[in-house]
């Protein structure tokens, strides 16, 4: 039975969750909830199909729910922007390691773009697999990937930390998308 198979996927799930949430505690919470969900949804996994893709799809759904809940909490009371939240939860600046800068820039990407970018790079999934995991057409994967990469490039070029505020501004520039306009 796939206990070992399942356990083998945990480190990957943890790493992806960490990159997605930028927070160790939230990330393990996400993995935990994903495994619990796997427990109740096992019947929907077809033997022989891609276990990893299935687990990532579960995790995506759980994450979307978490984010929605965070948004709801934000609306009812404390004014917490999800992006801000993720940003403050990110590791404190203890120097200028690329990893930290990168993670800080990463949380400034809109959720859906960040997920696509991480699945394609960190997880090295094919575009078709990503489309399957996120349940969107491949065309959507490609356009999100373009926006994510362009946006992340801007953020990194701007020096990570002191870039423009997250939120509406980020979304607006993200939509513009004529990617090859930047000259060196």
């Amino acid at each position, binding site marked *: 039975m796939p206990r070992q198979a399942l356990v083998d996927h945990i480190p990957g799930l943890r790493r992806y969750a960490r990159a997605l949430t930028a927070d160790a505690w939230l990330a393990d919470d996400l993995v935990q909830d994903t495994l619990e969900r796997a*427990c*109740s949804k096992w*019947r929907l996994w077809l033997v022989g199909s891609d276990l990893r893709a299935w687990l990532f799809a579960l995790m995506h759904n759980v994450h979307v729910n978490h984010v929605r809940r965070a948004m709801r909490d934000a609306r009812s009371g404390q004014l917490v922007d999800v992006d801000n939240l993720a940003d403050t939860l990110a590791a404190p600046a203890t120097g200028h390691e690329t990893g930290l800068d990168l993670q800080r820039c990463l949380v400034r990407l809109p959720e859906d773009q960040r997920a696509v970018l991480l699945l394609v790079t960190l997880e090295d999934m094919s575009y078709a697999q990503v489309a399957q995991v996120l349940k969107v057409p491949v065309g959507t994967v490609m356009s999100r990937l373009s926006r994510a990469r362009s946006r992340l490039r801007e953020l990194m070029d701007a020096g990570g930390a002191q870039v423009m505020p997250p939120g509406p501004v980020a979304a607006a520039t993200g939509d513009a998308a004529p990617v090859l306009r930047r000259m060196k």
Partner: protein
Amino acid sequence: MKTEPNRAADRVSEDELHALVDGRLNDVQRQAIETRLAGDPVALATRIAWQRQRDALRALHPSLLEEAIPPSLLVAAQRAAGARQQVNGWWRWGGVAAGVVCVFGLGWMARGLDTAPGASAQLVAESRAPSAARDFVRQASVAHMVYAPEVRHPVEVGAAQQEHLVQWLSKRLERSLKVPDLRAQGYELVGGRLLPGTDGARAQFMFENAERQRVTLYLGALSHVAGADAPGAAPSPDRTESAFSFSADGPVPGFYWVDQGFGYALAGALSRAQLMELAQAVYRQL
């Protein structure tokens, strides 16, 4: 095309850049794009930036792949795998064969040790239980065989600290537990202990009568047993329950049942009728 090489059709598209950076192209395709990139400095710069990005992202949080997995996640995985096993291997017997042989061996030994008169005779008599439940009841039986003969350390927490015992085990099994009162049947609580099971934590309560005969109640989460997730079945709270079943598979016989996703097994070297009476008493009180 020839006059303005950087325009329109000759330009490397973003999709092509993605495929190049993500290593999704074969050698021929890759070289064709590289050649075109040579005449497109803007796209080339993008390619370099994206490649650097990808390399950096791939190197994110590498320690998480190395470090030990937190126990809570292992338990969750265990539970998920257990659920899968129940869904999957419900009526499949092949995988169980080795376990049966093992149980048979234990039963044989138990007979030799004279702890379970009658148990070995019935050893292979009844074996209709689905594998997950079989597994559960077998573990209950083995746990009984291991701890019931103990003179000095039959339990971890004794009956004198019953309240603590119940609180502790309730916490570990994530369910509010109750210790059944079997004094009407002549059995006093000895105490209890925490045990590992296939799906996570399990608890064992031990009881003893005036003749020093011991019975143990073994319990733990056992979701999805009894085909709770049977394909096409309407979700019903009742599906996580099962009727009383008798098992003589393990070294000592026992009755087991499932109630609200929790498995219970009462095991002891007693007759079927005696066990039935005790099991019913337990069931009524839980």
